[in-house]
C-alpha cells in the first residue's frame, strides 16, 4: 500500500515573537527579533547583565478555560497547552477525528521547578547547623510545598496535560530534552500519519529554557555560544493525510515530503538562534511552523544532542 502524503493543517505557537502562531508568523515575516531583558532572579550573579528572551502576555487562564488546571502546570506545560490547543483548533481536528485516532508526539525540555515552591520546602528543612535535614523535610518541609510539585517536574506532564485538556487518546511518544529528541517526535508523527497508524497527529514541543536554573546550566555546560541567549517557547502542529485535508476542504500550510534524523558532527546549527533565541527542545517545531508559511523548502537543524533533523517541505498547490 502506498504511504499517505502528509500535510500540515494546524499550527499553534507561543514564542518571544508572539503569543499565537499568527503573531509569531507576522513578526518572522517582518524580520523582528525577540525582546530581551536580564532575569531578576540572577541579579547579583555573573549572569545579571546577560538578557534572555521575554515572552509576550499570553493570557493563559483565559485561553485555557480557567485557573483550575494551571495549578498542575509548569511554565512549559502552560506554553505547550496553549500551542496544542491553538493547533488543534486551527485544523478543526477535534471535530474531524476520533480522539482514539489522534496521536501525540512531543519533545520536552529540561525540568524546571518554581523556585518559590522549592525555597519554602528547603527553608523548612534546614536544621540548627544550617544544613539540609531529611528528618526535617519529612517532619515539616514537605508540608510547606505545593503537594502537586511532582506533576510540575515530571518530564511527560506538559504533553499529558495537552492530552487531558484536548481529549487526545491515540498512540504517543515523548522524548527529552534536546532538539534531536523533538526531531524524533516530528519524524514519528510523520511516519504514523504516512502509514495510517493514526488519522491525525499533534506533534511539537515546549521548553522553558529561559528559566533561571536552566540558564545557569546552559551557561555552565557551554551550550550557549557568544551572543546566544535562551528563550522559552512552544509549537505544536497538526499533521494529516493530504487526502483527508482535501476531502474536508482544510487549508494546507505545506506538505511534508521527507523527514530524517541522523548523527551530526558539525556542531549546533539553529537558524532561530538570532531572531528568537535558543529554545532547545522547542526549536525544531517552531522552525517547522515558521518555515511552513513559506510553503516549500528544506529545514535543517542540529542540536545539543548532535542529531540533525532534516525536513523537506513542499508548497501546497
Amino acid at each position, binding site marked *: 500500500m502506498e504511504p499517505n502524503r502528509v500535510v500540515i493543517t494546524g499550527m499553534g505557537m507561543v514564542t518571544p515573537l508572539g503569543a499565537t502562531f499568527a503573531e509569531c508568523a507576522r513578526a518572522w515575516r517582518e524580520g523582528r527579533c525577540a525582546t530581551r531583558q536580564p532575569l531578576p532572579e540572577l541579579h547579583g550573579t555573573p549572569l545579571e547583565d546577560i538578557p534572555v528572551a521575554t515572552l509576550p502576555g499570553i493570557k493563559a487562564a483565559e485561553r485555557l478555560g480557567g485557573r483550575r488546571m494551571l495549578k498542575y502546570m509548569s511554565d512549559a506545560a502552560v506554553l505547550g497547552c496553549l500551542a496544542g490547543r491553538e493547533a488543534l483548533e486551527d485544523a478543526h481536528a477535534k471535530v474531524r477525528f476520533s480522539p482514539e485516532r489522534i496521536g501525540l508526539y512531543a519533545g520536552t525540555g529540561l*525540568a524546571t521547578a518554581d523556585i518559590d515552591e522549592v525555597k519554602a520546602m528547603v527553608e523548612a528543612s534546614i536544621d540548627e547547623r544550617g544544613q539540609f535535614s531529611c528528618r526535617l523535610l519529612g517532619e515539616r518541609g514537605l508540608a510547606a510545598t505545593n503537594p502537586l510539585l511532582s506533576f510540575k517536574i515530571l518530564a*511527560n506532564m506538559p504533553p499529558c496535560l495537552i492530552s487531558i485538556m484536548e481529549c487526545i487518546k491515540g498512540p504517543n*511518544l515523548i522524548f527529552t530534552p534536546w532538539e534531536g529528541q523533538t526531531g524524533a517526535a516530528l519524524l514519528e508523527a510523520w511516519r504514523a500519519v504516512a502509514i495510517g497508524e493514526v488519522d491525525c497527529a499533534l506533534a511539537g514541543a515546549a521548553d522553558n529554557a529561559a528559566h533561571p536554573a536552566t540558564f545557569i546550566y546552559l551557561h555552565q555546560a557551554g551550550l550557549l555560544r557568544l551572543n546566544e541567549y535562551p528563550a522559552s517557547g512552544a509549537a505544536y502542529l497538526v499533521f494529516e493525510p493530504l487526502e483527508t485535508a482535501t476531502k474536508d476542504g482544510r487549508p494546507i500550510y505545506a506538505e511534508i515530503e521527507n523527514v530524517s534524523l541522523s548523527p551530526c558532527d558539525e556542531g549546533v546549527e539553529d537558524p532561530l538562534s538570532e531572531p528568537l533565541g535558543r529554545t532547545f527542545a522547542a526549536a525544531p517545531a517552531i522552525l517547522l511552523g515558521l518555515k511552513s508559511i513559506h510553503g516549500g523548502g528544506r529545514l535543517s537543524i542540529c542540536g545539543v544532542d548532535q542529531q540533525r533533523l532534516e525536513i523537506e517541505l513542499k508548497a501546497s498547490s
Partner: protein
Amino acid sequence: MKRVAITGFGVVSPIGVDRDSFWDSLARGVSGISPITHFDATTFEVQLAGEVKEELALPEHVKEVSREDPKVGFAYGACAEALSQAGIASLHGRVLLHIGTSLEIFNLNKVIYEGKPDFKAVARDMLKGISPSLQTPLDRASRLITQQFGRPRQSLTNCSACAAGAQAIGHSFHAIRSAYFELAACGGFDSMINPLGVGGFQLLGALTTDNQRGARACRPFDSERKGTVLGEGAAIFVLEPLEKARAEGKEILAEVMGYASTLDAYSLSAPDPDGDGAARTMIMALKDASLSPSEVHHINTHGTGTQLNDEVEAKAIRRVFAETWEKIPVTATKSMTGHLMAAGGPVELGACLLSLIRRVIPPNVSLDQVAEGCELHHVTEPGTRFEGEYVLTNSFGFGGQNASLVLRRYDG
C-alpha cells in the same frame, strides 16, 4: 515486515543485579522491599522502597556520575549485560538506542547557602564552577552508553513516566520490524528513592504508608493494598531481525510480537475508571501481534498496589479477555521489586522473557485476599509451571500514558 528477536537482556533490580540473580529471586518469590537506607526517611510517612543495595561493577567515570544520579549507573550496568549477551561490542551503524526514564534528580542540599535557601548565592557559586548545576538532564545515561559503546544512528531518551521504558521497547520493536534499523538497544532505567522523589510521591498519596508490612507492603490486587512502593533499577534489551540473528547463530531468547500505546485523556494521577485506555492498549497490541485474546497464556500486570490502578486494570483484563480471563495466569512482580517507574515495564518484560525461557511464572507474593473488583487468575505461589507460548505485559503511567507488549516463546 521483519520478525524481531530478543538476543540480549540485562537487568539491575532490587532483587538482583544481573539476569541470574534477578530470576532466582523472582522464581523463589523473594521481595526486595525493605526500609529505606539511601537517606534518612524515618520522619517520612513512607519508609519503604525496593532499593538496589549491591554495588555495581562500573567504570570509574560512570560511578562518579552515579553517586549523584544512581539511575545512570543502573542503565549502564543493564546495557552492558544486554550487549554482552547479544555479542554486541559496538552500537555504531544502523542502530537505535532508545531508553526511557522519568525524572531529573534534584538535590535539595544544593540550594542552601550559609544556612539559608539562597538561589542567587548558589547561582554565583555554580557560575564560578564552585558547585554543580541544579539540572541533571535525562540523557546523561545515553551519553555515557554511547561514549563507551559507540554512537548509534539515533539515540533517544523517552520520558513517558511509568510507560517510558515499555514505550522505548515498543517503538524499537516497530523500528526493527519496519527495517528502519538493524539493531536496537532499548529499555528503561529509573530511581526516585531520594528525598524529593519519595517526598513528592508521598504528597501525591501514591505510596503506601503501611510500613509495618515491610517486604510485603506492595500488595497488588489485595484487599488491603494501600499504595505502591518505589523501586529502582533498569532493564535493557537487544532487539534484532530474527532471520539475521538466526543466520549469525545467535541465541534467540524470545520473539517480540506486538506493541501499542494509548492515552487515557482522563487525569494526571488516576486511570480512567472504565479502563478504556488500558483495554484499548491491550486490544491494539494483540492486533499488532495478529493474535486473538484467547491465544494469550500469561499476563504480567502493571499491578502497582494502588487502589485505583489495580481495580481498573483487572476490569480491563476481564473485558479484553472476556472468554478466557479465568484461565490466564496473571502475576504482579511489583510485589517483589516495587514500582521501578520508567524501568517498571522493561523489568516486567524481563520477567516475562525469563518465564518463557524457564517455564515458570513468578508469584504475586503479597496477595492474601483478592480485593473486590480485582478478580483474575492470580498466581501467588512460587514454582507455577508455564508451558504457554504468548505473554503480555502492561505499563500504565502517571499522566495517562499506557503501553502493552506481547512476547512469544522461541522454540527454534
